[in-house]
């Protein structure tokens, strides 16, 4: 669940239509329209979560700003709309506890992301629009989302020419025994951390 109290506003006098905002928006809410010198960014207020990615990466000072919504709104998916067992199965397949927080900014938990997937979301962007996840810092939570999608048998494609995300990365469960042994004496306690993570998962089962 995410409270949305801000939105991005474009100053078309300054915007050059350079497309950086479009490449970084986690909800695909800002797009460039127009031809050649008339190109300008346009914000879809229905899906903009006011995360500020566009504002923070725009190269043209004053071209985009965050404004306060007159009335804040709440976006989110209620996990109770989906069978609890299905959510749990999906989370366990991804090796994530259903109550585990996946987004520290919005407090979104794995069960909400799983519910969004089970209700039809097929990409990180759709999940962000539905739950608000990935619209705080925009940095830390992409991988558990991709893991949950993969667990559901979905392999989303990165946005064409976008920089939103590139791909799924390894987890501790993928690291080979050879690498674990090679580095365990250097302070990388992979086996011990796996035991901790397993304990967390077992606590939900």
């Amino acid at each position, binding site marked *: 669940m*995410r*409270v949305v*109290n*801000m939105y991005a506003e474009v100053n078309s006098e300054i915007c050059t239509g350079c497309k950086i905002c479009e*490449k*970084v928006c986690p909800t695909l809410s800002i797009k460039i329209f127009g031809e050649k010198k008339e190109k300008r960014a346009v914000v879809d207020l229905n899906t903009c*979560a*006011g*995360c*500020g*990615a566009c504002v*923070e*990466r725009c190269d043209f000072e004053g071209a985009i700003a*965050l404004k*306060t919504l007159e009335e804040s709104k709440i976006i989110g998916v209620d996990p109770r709309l989906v069978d609890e067992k299905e959510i749990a199965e999906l989370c366990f397949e991804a090796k994530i*506890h259903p109550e*585990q*927080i*996946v987004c*520290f*900014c*919005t*407090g979104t938990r794995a069960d909400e992301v799983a519910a969004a997937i089970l209700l039809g979301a097929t990409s990180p962007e759709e999940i962000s629009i539905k739950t608000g996840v990935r619209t*705080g*810092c*925009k*940095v*830390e*939570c*992409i*991988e*558990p989302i991709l*893991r949950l999608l993969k667990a559901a048998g979905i392999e989303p494609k990165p946005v064409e020419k976008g*920089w939103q*995300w*590139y*791909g*799924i*990365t*390894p*987890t*501790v469960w*993928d*690291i080979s025994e050879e*690498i674990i042994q090679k*580095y365990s004496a*250097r*302070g*990388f*306690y*992979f086996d*011990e*951390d*796996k035991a*901790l*993570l397993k*304990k*967390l998962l077992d*606590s*939900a089962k």
Partner: protein
Amino acid sequence: MVVKLEKPVRPLLPKQSRYGPDPDHIKTRACDLENIVSLRVRELFRDIPENIYPSERGIKAVREATVDALANVDMSMIKPEDSVNILGSHHGFLLAGGEPYAEMLKAIKDVIAEKTGSENIRLKVGVGLRFRESDEYIRRFGLDEYFGKGKAKGVTPIDEGIPIETEIGTLYGIKKCYDADWIVHAHNSDVREIHFHRHVDRAVKPFGMSYARIETRSTYHHNLGPRGANFVARAIFNSEFVQNKWTFATFLKPTPAGIAGVDADNDLFALDERLTIDNFRYYGKILSLLSRIDECIVVLDFQAPIPYVFSAGMIFANLSASSVDIFDLDYPLPGYTWYTEAFYGKDDRPLIPDTPPVNPAIKAMVINYAWGGYPSVFWAKMIPTIVVGEHQADVFEKDPQNIEFMRHAVVAKDLQTAIEFAARIADTDKILIFDGAPGAINVSTPLAEELVEKTFEVNKAVEQKSMPKWCRQRGMKIGDKI
């Protein structure tokens, strides 16, 4: 031992930033409260090396130390026609006011140009979660002019990425960091986020963080576990892609008392081992001392997000994590780290019973001055929190990373009112101020006396018990280094 309680050391003036309140709102500083005194860090731990900065020699001491440190570094791989990216991190600018780090970066550029003849030297400075922060520092310290038009830039984890094949699979770096023939790693040895990196490969961390894309950073904080997290940095650093561009590292060396020098090496792991020993000795003692505080009210009063405000070189996040010894790898989870936070359920209780709490000695938190730009709701949920003034509350209300923060905190009209309220909640007169006072800890007199009393025992325990254990856990040959 005898340690003088001095009048409070004043913190730096508040800085204008898009991430914090207008400095004009910061009318009263926590060190101005009644009964606040200062403990000089070097009075507590007398083995801490002398500062080169601040010192009578001024900023030129940092330049000289950088030039000296680079004297024996091999730069022969860089040819006059080659391009070089000096890679930096925003964090260096939070040390001793930022000028030493800026001067070190300028000196590195000059030495490379002199030794190699290269004229195409750029500066790329990574960020935490505040994407404009490095650009603010680049302007403030004139690095844009020093490096030349367009050659000094902040880079962020949402900028265009580049895949990097590593021994554990594909990770992702920021393309702009690697768009030169060669890279130079220009960082600092401050322990800072030890609750995350656990001082395992501390010197390597920016390869998995400041210079990395969101996928890599998310891997760090979600995929590898609380003690294996920093392996992403080693994996990227060891990759063929990075090694083909690698030249050397130059590190500013802070201690809890100031800047002690500059170190440089072509061998990053050798440098890491040197700074690790120093950090165990100096920061290990300070954090061990602070973690022995029985009870206190913390006051945050510095131009940084909540976790990064600091006192005696230790950031607030370190203290909040110190319900266990966070240097000791036998403890899987510190009292605060993102793995720990993730393991709290919907009822705000740990999902597994052996999760350590946020340091229970922190009875209340007063925020007189702090920035947004870091998800901080967890602390407000775990510690009774009083925010001073609507201007400070507004920072959190409008921060996409902290929209829920003020649901868990109250607002006081002024600092004095906040402290009085906190004292009623906490039932203590012990106050610990995180205001970045140079070389000192600003505290209330009763807490100063407690810290002085505990220092001798901490010094002995860290030297004789903790340091050998911490070194052993990381495979370091301790021998005569300790």
